[in-house]
């Protein structure tokens, strides 16, 4: 019987009411406990979970409305029914405003009580079933930390799971923020190398010589500043997976070095003669069209083929909008845990806007937007205005003001960074400058990766 799981707490200062109502509900199969006053009811609420609280409005000391308030704070999902000896509009309004499920006027009709309890039970059952179903669905839509119900992504998951079992090189293609590294980590975790290290390297973040030493390590004295021998990422990833992010950004010399390692699984440290052999699975990633770059002679064709053994293309978020609600729910849940506060979700118009947005920064941008929303939101529901989604007017200078060239540049750089979800490489490409120049401009104007002003005292 479904009622067995329903626990009802009856609170009334009159023993005869507690007895007769408790007895009646027990015959309905509910688990019933009675309490004679507010404070003892609160103690019960603090100690255990309850499904329904039936509380008398008028009690000496702590009254029903005070119990209601405290109960909703302790157990927000609790259905609270207020009992009153005579209904006045005021008490009914106060009870409903305070979050009561309903109220009953004593003595009440057995049919009314029976129907009300059944309604609460079936609603709570629906909520529980919904939660279980959602969790089951999430498992189905999940590949480790990746979440999607789109058919395109489902086949990505399938391919990735199959590829994980082999040691072949995998090339992950996808726009910035689409989750290339998350997929690489998932493949590593699914592979027989899961116990080994996962070593990520961003090839775009370093100059060619630094990247060379980063990848292969160096011997002491091999260049100015090389004061000690240092192992590179290839050695660090021995027995595991090396993730080469933004592999399309590496220069010609490193392309050749990388090709050699991929062919021979052996290399030298910078400035060293010793041949070092490693057992490393390579997962490379890029948001560039490497095939086109290879045809145009900007990327070694032989290296392209070495990397392109198993290509996996992650579709951009705008091509799988059906994932937005699923991802929103997932991030909102995670943000709630991280921020230790209650976030129930986003408002319907916020969801509409999120569904309509183009997401150039993909899932990363979505997460950033939701994080901002969660910080700014005053209630448990994130509103449209909290999200700060860029409207077209934001990028253009405000009418009626004549800004300096520097001011316009600062604003534009910040807008592009916000647009790409903080992706420096993509922002640099949009702006038509190299990354170093962009970093310099960010430093100069005090702009953080997310496009926000970093200057002290800046309004946030």
């Amino acid at each position, binding site marked *: *019987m479904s009622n067995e799981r329903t626990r009802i707490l009856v609170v009334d200062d009159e023993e005869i*009411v507690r007895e*007769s109502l408790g007895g009646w509900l*027990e*015959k309905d*199969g509910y688990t019933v406990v009675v309490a004679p006053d507010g404070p003892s009811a609160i103690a019960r609420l603090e100690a255990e979970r309850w499904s329904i609280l039936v509380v008398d409005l008028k009690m000496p000391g702590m009254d029903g409305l005070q119990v209601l308030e405290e109960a909703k704070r302790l157990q927000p999902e609790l259905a609270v029914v207020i009992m009153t000896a005579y209904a006045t509009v005021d008490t009914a309004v106060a009870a409903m405003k305070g979050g009561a499920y309903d109220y009953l006027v*004593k003595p*009440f*009709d057995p049919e009314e009580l029976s129907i009300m309890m059944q309604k609460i039970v079936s609603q709570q059952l629906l909520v529980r079933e919904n939660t279980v179903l959602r969790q089951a669905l999430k498992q189905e839509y999940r590949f480790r930390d990746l979440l999607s119900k789109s058919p395109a992504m489902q086949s990505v998951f399938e391919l990735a799971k199959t590829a994980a079992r082999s040691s072949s090189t995998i090339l992950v293609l996808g726009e910035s923020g689409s989750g290339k590294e998350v997929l690489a980590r998932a493949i590593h975790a699914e592979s027989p190398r899961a116990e080994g290290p996962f070593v990520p390297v961003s090839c775009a973040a370093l100059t060619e010589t630094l990247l060379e030493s980063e990848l292969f390590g160096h011997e002491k004295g091999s260049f100015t500043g090389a004061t000690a021998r240092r192992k590179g990422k290839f050695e660090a990833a021995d027995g595991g997976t090396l993730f080469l992010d933004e592999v399309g950004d590496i220069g010609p010399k490193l392309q050749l070095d990388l090709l050699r390692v991929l062919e021979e699984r052996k290399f030298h440290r910078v400035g060293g003669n010793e041949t070092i052999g490693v057992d490393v699975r390579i997962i490379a990633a890029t948001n560039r069209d490497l095939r086109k770059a290879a045809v145009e002679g900007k990327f070694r064709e032989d290296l392209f083929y070495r990397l392109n053994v198993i290509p996996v293309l992650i579709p951009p978020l705008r091509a799988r909008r059906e994932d937005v609600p699923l991802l929103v729910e997932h991030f909102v849940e995670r943000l709630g845990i991280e921020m230790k506060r209650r976030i129930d979700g986003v408002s319907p118009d916020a969801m509409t806007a999120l569904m309509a947005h183009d997401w150039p920064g993909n899932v990363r941008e979505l997460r950033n937007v939701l994080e901002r929303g969660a910080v700014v939101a005053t209630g448990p529901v994130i509103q449209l205005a909290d999200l700060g989604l860029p409207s077209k007017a934001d990028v253009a200078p405000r009418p009626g003001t004549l800004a300096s060239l520097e001011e316009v540049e600062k604003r534009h750089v910040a807008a592009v960074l916000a647009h790409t979800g903080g992706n420096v490489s993509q922002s640099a490409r949009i702006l038509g400058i190299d990354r170093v120049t962009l970093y310099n401009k960010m430093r100069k104007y005090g702009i953080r990766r997310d496009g926000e002003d970093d200057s002290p005292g800046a309004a946030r």
Partner: protein
Amino acid sequence: MDPIFVWWIGEEEPDPQLVEHVRLHLARAFRRPAAIWDGEARPRHAFDPRRRQHASGVILRWLLEAGPGGGKVLGVTDRDLFIPILTYVFGEAQLGGRAAVVSTARLVEDVELVGPQLLVERLAKEAVHEIGHAFGLVHCDGEGCVMGRSPAVREVDAKSSELCAECRARLGTQGEG
């Protein structure tokens, strides 16, 4: 095996057929002897002049004192019953106890239109239902089961006078209750 006693405690003259019908139904439903208990006493102190109804809880306690010393006892009355929190009840029982009471006062709805057999059937159902509580059974969602909740005559008419297989099984495990 302890019997179930059926005792007319109404103010009007009892209808012997009605009481006999209840007795037969109880004997069949609980597979044990059921007997008529005859006593002159009536629970008049249970009358609440403010509500103009009889308090069923008071009657239950009185049945234990004034009725037979053993077995289960079902008081059948023509007076309207209430418990303090509800406007009326068709009957009440001690869950897993000895005493139960049912009233015909509200079961007579539409009887004039349909015929006296309707009241006989309704009373038998509510009698089995209340004695079921005295045997420790709680309300049941099984289709047509007599232990289904019936806050109005509509629900009484909709259910059967039988215990469903599950309630019967529970009855077996709970024994005398």
